[in-house]
């Protein structure tokens, strides 16, 4: 039967397999829902065998290793950019900040995936510094927009070199965000005292 053929109701050939929305399985756990006999549908095209379009986050899903981390990172970044989109659309500052706080809370999970590349790690780490330096002050609209843009870019290209990651940090810095750890200057305080001694 071709992809474009119209199924005849009641015929055996019209019985199709439905895949669960999340295809991942846990080791040692029997997957009983992998294939389910479903009610036939009348028309099918290129997506004949799936109930909905498979998202890119699922397409390259893998059980373990670096590629798994990339997929996981893309997944989390989708969530995070979604919250930032909501924050951008919010008229209410408090509500917008609640979305941004969700982003902040997700940073440790993203940082745990930093082995996919230093460009990825340096951006996530700098965003943490941004929130620390803000000390609870909400991001303004322009800052939300730039953070959203940087993370959206990261979602599209999670594997970056350190230098590419730093270029994104420079964008954050240009809109007034403080991207360095506040105590980093202390590293040089000893130097100053020794030089002037």
């Amino acid at each position, binding site marked *: 039967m071709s992809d474009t053929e119209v199924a005849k109701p009641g015929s055996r050939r019209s019985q199709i397999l439905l895949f669960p929305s999340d295809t991942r399985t846990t080791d040692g756990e029997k997957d009983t829902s992998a294939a389910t006999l479903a009610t036939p549908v009348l028309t099918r095209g290129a997506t004949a065998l799936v109930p909905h379009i498979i998202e890119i986050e699922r397409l390259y899903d893998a059980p373990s290793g670096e590629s798994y981390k990339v997929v996981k990172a893309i997944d989390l970044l989708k969530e995070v950019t979604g919250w930032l989109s909501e924050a951008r659309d919010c008229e209410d500052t408090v509500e917008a900040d609640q979305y941004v706080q969700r982003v902040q809370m997700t940073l440790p999970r993203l940082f745990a995936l930093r082995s996919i590349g230093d460009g990825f790690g340096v951006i996530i780490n700098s965003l943490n510094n941004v929130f620390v330096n803000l000390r609870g002050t909400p991001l303004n609209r322009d800052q939300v927009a730039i953070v959203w843009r940087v993370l959206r870019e990261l979602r599209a290209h999670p594997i970056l070199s350190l230098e590419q990651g730093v270029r994104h940090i420079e964008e954050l810095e240009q809109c007034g965000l*403080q991207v360095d*750890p506040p105590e980093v200057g202390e590293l040089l305080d000893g*130097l100053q005292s020794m030089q002037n001694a």
Partner: protein
Amino acid sequence: MPNAYVETTILTDLLLKPYSHKQERAKAALARYDSTLLPVYSIKEWKAGPLYYFVYVHNKLVTTQSFANTLQAIAALPLGYRRSTAQEALAAAGQQLRRQPQNFTVLGNTDKDHADSYRLSLASIIIRSWNKRRKVTTQVVQELPCYLEAAPSIGTDRLFDLSPRHCQIDEECSLAVKLKSNPELLEALRDAIPANSTRREDQKRRKALKHLIKHPDWIFTRDLCRDLGDAIYAFFCPAGAVVLTTNLRDHERLTKALGKLAEKP
């Protein structure tokens, strides 16, 4: 206001002490002058000194993969007569930071996480400060043909390489001709340094000045150029400019000897 001739300590405060009052003070000071001039000599000294310390700590974090061990390694740098200023500075910074570990802004829960978080912060500041170095003043002046201003590079081993940190060894210092053409200024600078000073810096500076005065035909090497240090600023600071520095103690007496001025931010 006259022009400012920006010395290494100001460049360091501007580039490597983000969000500190020192950085704010340096920025405010630059805004006071009509024109701000950054000699390439300041970039060279900044790269060989303060930037190198950040690279050292960064590379230590890479090799130890431990935040605690890195701080310990820095604090435990050998003390004694032979220790370099760099080692002294790092040891002092390490001890200070170890006393206040709760002050660190890091992600993650483990020591390795903390090492990675700080490594990435340092990598970011090393690259960005290098990118900004020629943008903090209105002009960059007095290029040094004998010095290759190469950007920090990072290898596949994640270690930063700052080489070359110094001028070419096989050629004479490009400042030599101008220095040798004004022996009376060199003598004034030498006389401004107390002959009985016990500071190594003063002793080396006097020796380098003496060498230039007594042996103008001899090759003036990169090591002698480095030993001149602060005297370079007093000598090359253009008319109508003041040396802007946080180290007024050394610069004031040298600039005064040549009828020039040094100012703090």
